[in-house]
């Protein structure tokens, strides 16, 4: 476990903003500028070798006023069997580079993070809404979006030539 963290801290040093170990889950926080670089390193380095992106998710922390959004990538290595969580904090409207070039499976994850939280991804091949309708308004997983009541979408009973 420490070999993994050593490799990452040796490569990035102070650019790793924070490391954590809660219940055995290793976590590192990086700046959004280093997002793609750190994940590329994690995938390609011999000591880390994270060959699969387990999931990538957005998060909203309204109490953290300076950077209320977060992006979390959960990596897993089939070679070593270890896992790592990489986090970055984002402001409203801030975009990060897409990691679909590293792991194609990030495609849906990033589309979901975009539609649910409004986190932008530069270089994403097809950044449109995934789970909700095309004309849905607002970002439903944000904490200020009401849970109940069909707020952002509208029920259409006609397909309007969309299908």
């Amino acid at each position, binding site marked *: 476990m420490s070999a993994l963290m050593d490799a990452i801290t040796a490569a990035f040093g102070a650019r790793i903003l924070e490391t954590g170990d*809660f219940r055995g889950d290793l976590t590192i926080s990086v700046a959004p500028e280093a997002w793609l670089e750190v994940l590329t390193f994690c995938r390609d380095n011999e000591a880390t070798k994270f060959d699969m992106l387990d999931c990538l998710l957005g998060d909203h922390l309204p109490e953290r006023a300076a950077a209320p959004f977060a992006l979390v990538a959960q990596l897993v290595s089939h070679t070593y069997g270890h896992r790592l*969580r990489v986090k970055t904090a984002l402001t409203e409207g801030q975009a990060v580079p897409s990691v679909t070039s590293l792991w194609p499976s990030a495609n*849906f994850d990033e589309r979901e993070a975009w539609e649910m939280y409004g986190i932008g991804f530069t270089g994403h091949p097809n950044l449109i809404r*995934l789970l909700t309708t095309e004309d849905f308004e607002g970002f*439903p997983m944000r*904490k200020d979006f009401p*849970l109940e009541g069909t707020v952002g979408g509208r029920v259409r009973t006609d397909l309007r030539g969309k299908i």
Partner: protein
Amino acid sequence: MSADPHTDTHGAAVDTHGHDSHGHDAHGNGCAPAGPKRPTTEELIARKAATRQEIEPGADLMTISIGPQHPSTHGVYRIVLDLDGEIIVDGRPEVGNLHRGIEKLCENRTYHQIVPLTDRLDYIASFAMNHGFCEAAEKLMGLEVPDRGRYIRTIAHELARLSNHILWLGIHVMDLGTQTFFCICFRDREYILDLWEMLCGARLTHSFARIGGVAKDLPDGFEYRCRKVMEFLPKRVAEYERIVKNNRIYYKRAKGVGVFTAEDCYAWRVTGPPLRSAGIARDLRKDEPYAAYGEVDFDVAVEYNADVYDRFLVRMKEIRESCKIILQCLDQMPDGDFISKDAGHVLPRKSEVMRQSGAMIQDFNQVFRGPQAPKGEVYRAIEVPKGEMGVYIRSEGGGKPARVRFTTPSFYHGQALPALAKGEMIADMVAIFASIDVVLGDCDR
């Protein structure tokens, strides 16, 4: 797909009964190294290239939409395919037709209230979903599950796997043209559901796991009936294999179709039986043991050809292994509590709530305030029948999570379908889609 370029590996399986040409017998667990027959990754890629058709650049493409109401999309999946003649050039999946915002709902519910919501993720193997969430919540709260609870969970999880695989088999083979076989599978699945009714009263949406254990102890007579079913299911699997495995029609439609190598699986996060059919013995039950999987003896089902046929073989082996696991759990079943006694995080037994004041206070606290979790974030992945399911929980303290994310296998399997089907014939799309086992409730969340 008349020109099948690699009948050499499996050609004998068509004509002989009960033995395939892997070098081990058809009823073995198949986890031994396959010897010289095992293809290398390069061979698999070459096979993939050979089975897949040449796509002319700039050809006139025809676009067709399959789903969301289509009998073989297993729900309301929709894919828009670009075809060059009969060859699939590209596809654009559309999901979300069953999206409920379950993660948003989780942020407004206590941990105990989330357990029934997870039933409706993968409703074919509900307990696996309950289990995944409870494992994650226990990791967050630092709870220990008592031994008996862990063993009951293992039995329940394997029952979910059995009912999932048998249902999958019936529908998969029905997609390829049989109706009777579907009825055979449903006949056997009902025996599993009977066991479920004994355990928790429900057939489909169990909500049987609780944070800290399970909802109920094993009922009287369960062990006897469970043993009966577990002894009889492997015979049924042999029957399935007699019907399907050496069936020339099924063989022709499944063999060499939809080859997806291990590298492809990693890139697209395709896990579970499709990954194991590509020769990777990755099974979280072995690799990161949870419940009682560390204490029972079972083999990871592996096949090497990475096609639809091998995914079928992997699932058949997993049914046999599941029966083995359940029988071992029944043998080794320890005495004691089935749910933790931790009053801060666990619901009390219902029988005690109206009799003991302590239990009543605990019940009140748990129902109204929820289990008080520490601040922090955890990720827990378990092996559910369809693949690896992960649960991410971020807690700000208190009885409700601040963020829950269900990383469900179908979400990624549905996404990978265009990559799987590219270069294949349109008629094989149905077989390929079924082979990766997508359930849309699981996918859309």
